[in-house]
């Protein structure tokens, strides 16, 4: 029994009015308000649109922004995929998928990237190239790329209005002066459509190039901070860098230990307490698909042993 059903039963049994929820939890008025914010965000790529974020039945910081965006755009014919850290099976992805299965009956869910029309994600962009009919919804904790350089919203909004991104360039320069290279590995700031500097959410910088010129619509929801922003399809997205220190993505020395994929983002898995470790695809659907196609890594189980 889900928490939602529990509430309903308990309240009715205690003689209270029955508690009912709209399709996809939010009332239609709220969905309209969110859609308006989304449209504005699409019209001004990379600009953070304030919206009247609602309390959701999951905690702030756990994907309430992404959930509200998804709830606002979800229709009966949609197929939803939810990933966290690239995986459909991580606890929070399971919880959010379960939330929509309960509150949006009729909407199909999937773990297969290619079958999904709406993909809600935390911390990753799927390895497989997204298509024009797909929407990628990012969960965003801190939408303001300048927040850790300037804590005041009143100031950062001014800086965006003036396109004054000197602070960020100085920060990146100081990284180079101190470490010899830029020491930002995730949530790496990007410039969108030649105008706004944007936080791509805490995806590894490995995923930044996938945002550029993507055929899919990319939406970003920050519930606690009450901001929505967007990258329309086929928009130029450029990570900030310097001519003599160009942007570089992480490189993994070995292929995935399960499916032998290269050029993908890998998770490090500790195998024992003697330094044994393996590297496997962070995108579980991508890895499973490759294994189903017969690709084998150096540590894959034999097919029968894996069952």
């Amino acid at each position, binding site marked *: 029994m889900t928490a939602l059903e*529990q*509430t309903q039963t*308990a*309240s009715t049994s*205690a003689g*209270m009015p029955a*508690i009912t*929820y*709209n399709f996809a939890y*939010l*009332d239609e*008025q709220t969905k309209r308000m969110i859609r308006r914010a989304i449209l504005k965000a699409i019209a001004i790529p990379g600009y953070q649109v*304030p919206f*009247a*974020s609602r*309390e959701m*039945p999951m*905690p*702030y*910081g*756990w994907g*309430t922004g992404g959930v509200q965006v998804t709830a606002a755009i979800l229709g009966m014919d949609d197929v939803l995929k939810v990933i*966290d*850290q690239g*995986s459909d*099976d*991580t*606890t*929070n*992805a*399971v*919880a959010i998928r379960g939330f929509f299965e309960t509150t949006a009956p009729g909407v199909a869910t999937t773990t297969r990237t290619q079958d999904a029309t709406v993909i809600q994600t935390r911390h990753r962009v799927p390895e497989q190239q997204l298509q024009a009919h797909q929407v990628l919804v990012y969960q965003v*904790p801190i939408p303001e790329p300048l927040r850790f350089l300037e804590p*005041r*919203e*009143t100031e950062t909004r001014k800086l965006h209005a003036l396109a004054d991104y000197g602070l960020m360039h100085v920060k990146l320069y100081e990284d180079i002066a101190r*470490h*010899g290279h830029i020491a930002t*590995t*995730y*949530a790496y700031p990007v410039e969108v459509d030649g105008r706004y500097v944007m936080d791509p959410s*805490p995806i*590894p*910088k490995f995923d930044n190039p996938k945002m550029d010129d993507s055929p899919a619509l990319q939406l970003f929801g920050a519930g*606690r901070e*009450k*901001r929505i922003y967007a990258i329309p399809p086929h928009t130029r997205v450029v990570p900030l860098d310097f001519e003599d220190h160009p942007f570089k993505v*992480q490189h993994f*020395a*070995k292929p995935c*230990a*399960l499916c032998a994929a290269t050029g993908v*983002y890998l*998770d490090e898995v500790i195998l024992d307490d003697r330094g044994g470790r*393996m590297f*496997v695809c962070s995108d579980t659907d991508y*890895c499973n698909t490759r294994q189903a196609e017969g690709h084998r890594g150096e*540590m894959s*189980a034999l097919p029968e042993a*894996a069952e």
Partner: protein
Amino acid sequence: MYVAVKGGETAIRNAHALLAETRRGDTSVPEIGIDQISEQLTLAVDRVMSEGSLYDRPLASLAIKQARGDLIEAIFLVRAFRTTLPRFGYCEPVDTAQMRVERRISATYKDIPGGQVLGPTFDYTHRLLDPTLAGTTTEPPAPARAETEDGAPMPRVTDLLGDEGLIEAAPSTGEYPRDLTREPLSFPADRPLRLQNLARGDEGFLLSLGYSTQRGYARTHPFVGEIRFGEVEVELFVEELGFAVPLGPINVTECQMVTQFKGSSAEPPKFTRGYGLVFGQSERKAMSVALVDRALRFKELGEEQSAPAQDEEFVLSHSDNVQATGFVEHLKLPHYVDFQAELDLVRRMRAEHTDPVHGDARQEAAE
């Protein structure tokens, strides 16, 4: 051989089943009823209604039961329900001068029209654990009630000061207040918006901020002009009828702080206001709100900004415990993708640190 982590769904289901069992506790002990919570843990219910921004005793009691007594979790439950409710309209301002008072005290005057009414209070109790409460107690003797006649006037102390012009008029923006729950908060926020934010803010956070103003961080020389707790009528103006209809009574606590103001070349010295209004009985919260409200008014009163309690962005952005607990606790969520990126960077930097020239090459060889 490694098999990728699976089974999150089953694990979550099992964890929730365990939670339900733990919530119930020892089944040989009778289950606590919503009515018991509502009647005997009244102040907990008041806090949940107040910070949950929903005046509904049974629902707040249910939330407390479901949350195993964790009040912030209960507030969260109430908020998540409240947000789905349709809006019919906005009620008329409640008139606290017409309150059916259960408690009313002033620290600025010895006696006031309508009198000082102590009411149900912890004040002046000796904080000694009472072993007689451990068992089932006999019914407490009926208390003597103050002889206030129904309808006897109980003017607000600040109104008495106002008649003499000693205190500023209640400041008004003249505009209809915006609704914090329907619009995103933006800065600078006007006073109605700030008061809305404080009214649903975390009691502990506001208590500490209020306390800090008493210890010299934005000192405002406060006096409790008046605290009153009791029942007020909520009314809704119905367009079709052309008049306001009563929706029912609610209990509120109101605190009017009276603080000093030097005056300026344009204005003679006078007292200024700090205001707090919360659902239910919570003097601690109402007083804290009033202190912080006054501190946040530094700009309009031409005071210097020097302390955290005056910092509007800082106070209003961090007062909400549902937001705060969510974001602090989200650190429990998996972060291994980002951690992997940091691991890689730290390893590379360590390699460079040991051998600045060949660090990069060595690291690549090591991989």
